């Protein structure tokens, strides 16, 4: 068989992930309800003061996405591990790096869809103003989801086979994500609220830089990670 090219391989993996997801929509449904309840819990815990809630809405939104990403990332390789399909993919002449790219994009689109669904909820619960800068808000959301998905894919491939995998994924992922998350929360904040110091472009650039670092490092180490499976 002729080896499949890098981009085409990634596209095939991505398409397969999308099809699987679309057929059941199980992952998306589960994560949506999980993060919905997280956002609700935040609004209960922080009391009725709408000013406090509005000020912290970007943080709650990203924490909701982050917690949900643990579920969906863990699931993303559990499916493969159960059916031995990762081995199948690797035996097929698909480059492991294509699998990485495809999986990252698959996970990122799932998280992005989740974020899109959560945005109206933040309006209802925290009374934020989405119309201030919708384009850059979506850009921040997309870059942030990509930033969670890139290291998350590497770690979920690792922890899907480790003992106590449900503990391992957040333990490894959260510290690495903190700088990225900080940039994402700030970018979202300045897209939602008044940006007196024009900080938004800087945070978006920082977010892009983190995405590039995580994507390329993950791209380099992922083949080694799945090889041993």
């Amino acid at each position: 068989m002729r080896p499949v090219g890098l981009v085409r391989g990634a596209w095939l993996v991505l398409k397969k992930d999308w099809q699987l997801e679309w057929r059941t929509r199980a992952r998306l449904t589960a994560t949506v309800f999980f993060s919905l309840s997280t956002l609700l819990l935040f609004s209960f815990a922080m009391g009725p003061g709408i000013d406090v809630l509005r000020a912290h809405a970007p943080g709650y939104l990203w924490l909701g996405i982050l917690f949900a990403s643990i579920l969906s990332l863990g699931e993303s390789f559990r499916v493969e591990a159960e059916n031995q399909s990762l081995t199948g993919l690797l035996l097929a002449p698909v480059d492991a790096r294509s699998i990485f790219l495809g999986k990252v994009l698959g996970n990122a689109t799932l998280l992005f869809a989740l974020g899109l669904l959560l945005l109206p909820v933040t309006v209802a619960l925290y009374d934020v103003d989405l119309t201030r800068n919708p384009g850059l808000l979506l850009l921040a959301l997309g870059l942030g989801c990509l930033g969670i998905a890139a290291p998350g894919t590497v770690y979920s491939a690792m922890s899907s086979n480790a003992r106590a995998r449900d503990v391992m994924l957040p333990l490894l992922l959260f510290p690495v994500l903190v700088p990225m998350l900080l940039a994402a929360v700030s970018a979202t904040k300045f897209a939602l609220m008044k940006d007196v110091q024009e900080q938004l472009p800087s945070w978006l650039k920082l977010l892009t830089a983190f995405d590039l670092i995580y994507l390329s490092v993950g791209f380099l180490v992922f083949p080694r990670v799945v090889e041993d499976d």
Partner: protein
Amino acid sequence: MTPEARNRLVAIGAILVAGAALGWIALGNMGENLVYYWKPSELLAQGEKAYGATVRLGGVVVPGSVQWNGDHTSLTFQVADTHLPTAAKVTVSATETPPQMFREGIGVVVEGSFQSNQVFKTNRLMVNHSNEYKAPHDGGMPGDWKDTVTQAANEQ
């Protein structure tokens, strides 16, 4: 091109992308806007927009401006951008007892909010030490606050 050579090329490309991104963070000056605190001039430049929000203000304590109120429960002083007499100044009213290092001319960072009466109210006062460590017998002035301030003063 053999597959191995192409793989190596792709790997080198990925390393270059990561390095370039790190260099971009380092040299891209994007940190300038990502402030941990505002300087008085930046705060004043906001005008009315700055009122009320919880922000941080950093600068040097203007010599001669430190005053306690009658029963020693609150402290007012002015914070300036630099040591220069022309620098922008903001009056700060602190309810917290300052650390012992607090003195005229030292760098401080205060957390609080800018009131519409042009006073910055704070209950968290932090002292910012420079990177200078000198023995006391050295004499001379207290270490200038941060390199940039020193440079700015030298340029004048």
